């Protein structure tokens, strides 16, 4: 009994280490075989359509609502200090620094990451990947790398759109609905938000999130057991793991980027 459970524990540990090693090798192979993704850029563009363009609706609508809620909530709090004009700063800084990259990444993980895993998992289950190998086509170069670069390119664009849409939503609620002074809203925002410190750091964050999400999604798909259960489990794992990875990475990146300020 005891011996059995210890054996199980050891077995599971070895499996985890094995998987991490395989994931690292897979990630490096994807980077090494990225040549095709750029030489035949049509492949990457096709994937950008599926993971980027089709995510636009959810990103834009969520961004609008997040911005509107931020403005409502921020106004309630700022009102008690008589500084409603700072609403622009609150909305812009929280969106550009945190909410834009993080929420867009979480949405991207559940919208595009899960789709990537399911697609690659099914390709493996129906032996399309093996068929490619038989025809001397490297599935990593032909299938995996274009999806990876499409995700990495799409993610910062989606995050920027999310932030812009959120600020527009904040403007709608704050200025048009509640009646904060429009000049103060924009000018205070401009004086507080710095291009390098805030906007560029937000873009860097979203690029890192893009790499993490697509790498996890691709690996889970590639590693999925070739059964219906296996693919569904891999899809769930993609969403859970990449969401956790985004939040953990966000903490690390924020600690690095904003240590010196305020």
């Amino acid at each position, binding site marked *: 009994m005891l011996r059995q459970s210890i054996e199980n524990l050891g077995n599971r540990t070895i499996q985890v280490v094995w998987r991490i090693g395989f994931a690292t090798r897979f990630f490096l192979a994807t980077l090494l075989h990225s040549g095709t993704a750029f030489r*035949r850029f*049509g492949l990457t*563009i*096709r994937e*950008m*359509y599926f993971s*980027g*363009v089709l995510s*636009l609706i959810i990103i834009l609508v969520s961004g609008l609502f997040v911005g509107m809620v931020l403005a409502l909530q921020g106004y309630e709090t700022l009102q008690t200090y008589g500084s409603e004009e700072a609403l622009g700063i609150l909305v*812009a800084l929280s969106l*550009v620094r945190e909410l834009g990259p993080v929420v867009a990444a979480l949405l991207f993980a559940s919208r595009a990451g899960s789709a990537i895993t399911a697609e690659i998992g099914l390709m493996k289950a129906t032996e399309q990947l093996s068929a490619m190998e038989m025809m001397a086509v490297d599935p990593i170069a032909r299938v995996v790398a274009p999806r990876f670069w499409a995700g990495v390119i*799409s993610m*910062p*664009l*989606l995050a*920027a*759109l999310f*932030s*812009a*849409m959120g*600020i527009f939503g904040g403007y709608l609620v704050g200025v048009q609905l509640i009646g904060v002074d429009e000049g103060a809203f*924009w000018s205070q*925002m*401009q*004086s507080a*938000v*710095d*291009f*390098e*410190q*805030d*906007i560029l750091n937000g*873009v860097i964050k979203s690029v890192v999130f893009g790499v993490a999400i697509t790498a996890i999604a691709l690996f889970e798909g590639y590693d999925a057991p070739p059964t219906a259960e296996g693919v569904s489990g891999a899809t769930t794992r993609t969403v859970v793991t990449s969401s956790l990875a985004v939040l953990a990475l966000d903490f690390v990146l924020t600690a690095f980027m904003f240590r*010196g*300020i*305020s």
Partner: protein
Amino acid sequence: MNKTILDLWVGLFVITGIAALLFLALKVGSMSAVNTSNSYEVVARFDNIGGLKPRAPVKSAGVVVGRVADISFDNESFEAAVTLRLDKRYAFPKDTSAAIMTSGLLGEQYIGLEAGGDSQVLKDQDRITLTQSAVVLENLIGQFIYGKAQEGAPQ
């Protein structure tokens, strides 16, 4: 490779994404007002800088003319050495004075430059000698109480 309708959508996506970034850069944020290439640095020493932070604005007559580049402690004179990065477009006389001020009652602190009358102008790595430290609330209250006590003392 043929052009497809897909390319059109992806092109639109990329363009709107870049437009959003531009919107963020131009409308929401301000490019760091002073970049290193067309600026010069001067050093000002203060007895007390209060809550001044790097990147705080440097204003003259209310206009932002530069930013605080660096703050360090001089262990020889026991003063704070504040490096100001000023825009090259603005030249100040050598006897310009610097004071640490607060915008509003609880606002952020900034450095106010008051131009002097010297005919020579400040150059890179020059020193501003006339400085006025930040007003520390505790000192102010201390002085007030001291003054009151003096008033009430029997002659």
